[in-house]
């Protein structure tokens, strides 16, 4: 087994893992802060992907630039959806279950609205640089992967800084760790939940764009994406931003290494098997620490 193959496959594995992490980080937040398991999270990611596809196709806007359009758009939409759908179920005895059923329904609706608007044909996001690569010695860094990776690192860093440095971000963490005390110090839980939800949905949009740079997508692709982001979130520890990023890296490394060393037929099996074993031994994810 030679080094070039191993390193090359590690590189692309890690880049891919980070994209999953960006897609997962918002999922992790809504789950941690609001106890809402947001099944339609990946569907919103797919909307981001479709929006940037349309913008590229009809206006020639680069996907990264179009993130600047779709992210705020998703933010506003999510605020409305929160008020309309999520807030009413906060009175359920079991928010986790109620939110899962509700957002599962939402995912079906979104998928079919996308199918009506963009049709069922598969799409590929092809900006001008879509199949170029940066060549460094024997290694190739594919531009779309690089851009997706960059967008992911940027997105995750932004979320991290938001949570760490701003009052609103701190309120999000506070509301999650100790909702009662947070309220006593002036945190409006509904407002914070709305912001968390909207923020999560908009990062999903950015994550969707990144992932669309890597793979083709169809209206039902979100089902597949959901599985990966579930894994990233659980391995990283729910609500843990740094953990999610690390989990993305680890999943990338596992995939990369198994691609290099195993027959391809066994790659997915080994990835899921290892994750299962990992979860059995470290059920709380990489970092068992509440907060970040």
């Amino acid at each position: 087994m030679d080094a070039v193959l191993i390193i090359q496959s590690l590189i692309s594995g890690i880049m891919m893992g980070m994209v999953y992490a960006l897609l997962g980080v918002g999922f992790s937040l809504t789950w941690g802060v609001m106890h809402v398991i947001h099944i339609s999270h990946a569907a919103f990611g797919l909307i981001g992907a479709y929006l940037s596809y349309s913008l590229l196709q009809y206006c020639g806007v680069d996907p990264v630039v179009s993130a600047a359009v779709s992210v705020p758009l998703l933010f506003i939409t999510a605020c409305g959806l929160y008020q309309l759908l999520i807030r009413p179920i906060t009175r359920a005895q079991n928010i986790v279950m109620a939110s899962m059923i509700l957002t599962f329904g939402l995912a079906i609706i979104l998928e079919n609205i996308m199918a009506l608007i963009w049709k069922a044909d598969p799409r590929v996001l092809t900006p001008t640089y879509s199949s170029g690569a940066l060549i460094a010695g024997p290694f190739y860094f594919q531009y779309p992967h690089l851009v997706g990776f960059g967008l992911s690192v940027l997105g995750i860093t932004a979320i991290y800084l938001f949570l760490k440095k701003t009052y609103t971000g701190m309120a999000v963490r506070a509301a999650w760790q100790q909702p009662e005390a947070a309220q006593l110090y002036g945190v409006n839980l509904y407002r914070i939940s709305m912001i968390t939800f909207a923020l999560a949905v908009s990062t999903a949009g950015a994550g969707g764009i990144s992932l669309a740079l890597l793979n083709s997508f169809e209206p039902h692709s979100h089902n597949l994406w959901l599985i990966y982001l579930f894994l990233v979130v659980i391995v990283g520890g729910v609500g843990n931003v740094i953990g999610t990023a690390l989990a993305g890296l680890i999943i990338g490394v596992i995939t990369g290494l198994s691609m290099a060393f195993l027959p391809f037929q066994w790659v997915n099996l080994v990835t899921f098997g290892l994750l299962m074993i990992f979860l059995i031994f470290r059920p709380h994810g990489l970092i068992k620490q509440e907060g970040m």
Partner: protein
Amino acid sequence: MLSVENITVCYGQMKALQGVSLEISQGDMVALIGANGSGKSTLMNVISGMIQAVSGEIIWEGRPLKGLSPDNICQAGIIQVPEGRKLFPGMTVEENIIMGAYHPNVRRQAPESLQKVFSTFPRLADRRRQFAGSLSGGEQQMVALGRALMAKPRLLMLDEPSLGLAPKAAAEIFMIIKELNKEGMTILLVSQEVLETLSITTYGYVLENGIMALKGPSRELRENPKVKTSYLGL
């Protein structure tokens, strides 16, 4: 300044508070005592807006508070230090304290307030980067107090500040509370350490099974035979 009038609170069929009234005026330090489950924390939470009363009024500086949400009440200047401190365990000491200044009214003065808190509790300044969960009980209570001070309270409500602390730490906390009151802060103190509480407060209320059983100046309450037998163990 604050008057609680005839408050009744129900948990399902059970009445937690029944027609409870209480009065606090500017600069006072008032004690609220009672056995476990007598409804002290419930009263605190009603004032803070965490629990809605079935009937009764709460008047704060001439305005009714009923129906306001906790964050609005916080904005009005009523700050509670909850029982068990309820710090944010995954945040550092500094972040915990800064969270006290979350409300936009006080956010601007946060840097100065932070300096002041650190000068009041120098020990916290050394540990500002540590996670709140890793501190000792006494230090945690200081963080909780510091966090409350950041919010510039006009009425500070302390729920069992000495619970679970070593005697020395408890004494220290009471010292600080006394000091705060001297500086002019209005305080409502809930505690099971009846003797200690009644000795630093000016006025006291005694809750029994959700009913305000006794009230009067702390000095008198200390001499009250009923208080003596039930709470002071004399």
